[in-house]
């Protein structure tokens, strides 16, 4: 049997060794991880509107995308970095202080508006980039992301199979009233002739109701911004 002193010293030394080697590894890898995350964000934004070539992403993104920031009343705000905004933090602020980013893609006279969204899935946060046509109602494309949805079930939201179901759907009805797209329960629903609904995924009900809720909550915050953009068009 080892003495108490030995046991305590052993634990202390082992903790220090494991802790410091992890700290070195993590801080060494951090720049790469942060770059990966930023590039993944930019790529996700561009992927909603075009085929992305990862090699030229660094040049394409600044050339094609303008980052704009608005307040809830639809006024453009200058001096705020769009990527520095944490959507979740913003949604907890008083309404007058909330800032919402909007990414405007334009190429060869074609304009698309890309709205970032965040919400809650089953196990953790989910997010999406929603690309709208110039009419600010028709969905051109959407790219979902998630942190820890169940692989094969909720995690399927970031697959083209699911994302493509949003193409051509509309977020405003004929009377220009906001009518975000909802996900139907289960899969195999026929959504032809339903511009505000998409087919769901079996086994991913909670993740998908989170997706529907995200569309409802986030788009209602952009309602005034869309209105003022439409006026200025």
């Amino acid at each position, binding site marked *: 049997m080892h003495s108490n002193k030995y046991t305590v010293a052993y634990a202390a030394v*082992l903790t220090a060794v*494991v802790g410091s080697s992890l700290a070195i*590894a993590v801080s060494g890898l951090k720049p790469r991880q942060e770059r*990966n995350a930023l590039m993944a964000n930019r790529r996700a934004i561009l992927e909603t509107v075009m085929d992305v070539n990862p090699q030229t992403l660094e040049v394409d993104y600044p050339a094609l995308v303008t980052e704009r920031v608005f307040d809830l009343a639809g006024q453009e705000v200058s001096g705020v970095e769009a990527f520095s905004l944490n959507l979740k933090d913003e949604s907890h602020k008083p309404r007058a202080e909330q800032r919402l980013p909007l990414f405007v893609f334009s190429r060869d006279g074609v304009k698309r508006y890309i709205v970032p969204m965040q919400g809650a899935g089953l196990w953790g946060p989910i997010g999406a980039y929603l690309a709208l046509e110039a009419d600010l109602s028709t969905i051109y494309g959407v790219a979902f992301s998630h*942190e820890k949805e169940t*692989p094969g*079930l909720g995690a399927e939201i970031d697959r083209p199979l699911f994302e493509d179901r949003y193409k051509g759907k509309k977020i405003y009805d004929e009377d220009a009233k906001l009518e975000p797209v909802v996900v139907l329960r289960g899969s195999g629903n026929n959504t032809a002739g339903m511009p505000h609904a998409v087919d769901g995924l079996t086994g991913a009900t909670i993740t998908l109701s989170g997706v529907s809720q995200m569309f409802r909550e986030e788009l209602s915050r952009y309602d005034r911004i869309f209105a003022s953009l439409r006026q200025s068009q």
Partner: protein
Amino acid sequence: MSTQIQIPPNRTAPLFSKKQRKLLSDPIGDNNPITIQVLGICSALAITTQMRTSLVMALSVVFVLACSNVAISLLRKGIPERIRMIVQLMVVAGLVVLVDQVLKAFAYDISRQLSVYIGLIITNCIVMGRLEAFALSNRPWDALLDGIGNGVGYGAILMVVAFFREVFGAGTLFGYQVVPQAFYDAGYRNNGIMLTPAAAMFVIGIIIWIHRARKPKLVDIS
């Protein structure tokens, strides 16, 4: 009196003695951690929807098992008996965090798909089981072989399960379409239940059944 010269066993022992080859091969077959010991089932059910994620998971587990086995084997004489499990846990947790961080830096997409399950290698019973049962009482080289053997045994089952789940659940292998479009045109549909964890249970159950049916001596072990 015999004139035979006693050879020190360590000097001339081949790199892979028969016993050491068994350390590698046993966990892949007759003493498989998943199908015989029924350990590590949790992650085997969770991440086997795709071959690619399964492969990365399998490699991560092989790495963690091999390294932690060697580390604990090297430390085995100095580890205070009373805190040995905490020491094991710390070595394992350190290695798992390292794997997680490396994947985030170099295989960002896959690390996002595997999400929590890399972190959960810490609680994979196979890892702690091998440390307790083997590394604490064996030399580093043997412990390394045992770790690799068990990791590969786990990974092999993962790949088999993922193969069936991905082919029948999504019609793809490693993300590439293998079920031809003509099948879908003829009315074939991907089987959604293969994507649920329940299907992994069925597949593992069938593997265990076949395994034991072919080797009756395994039937009474567990």
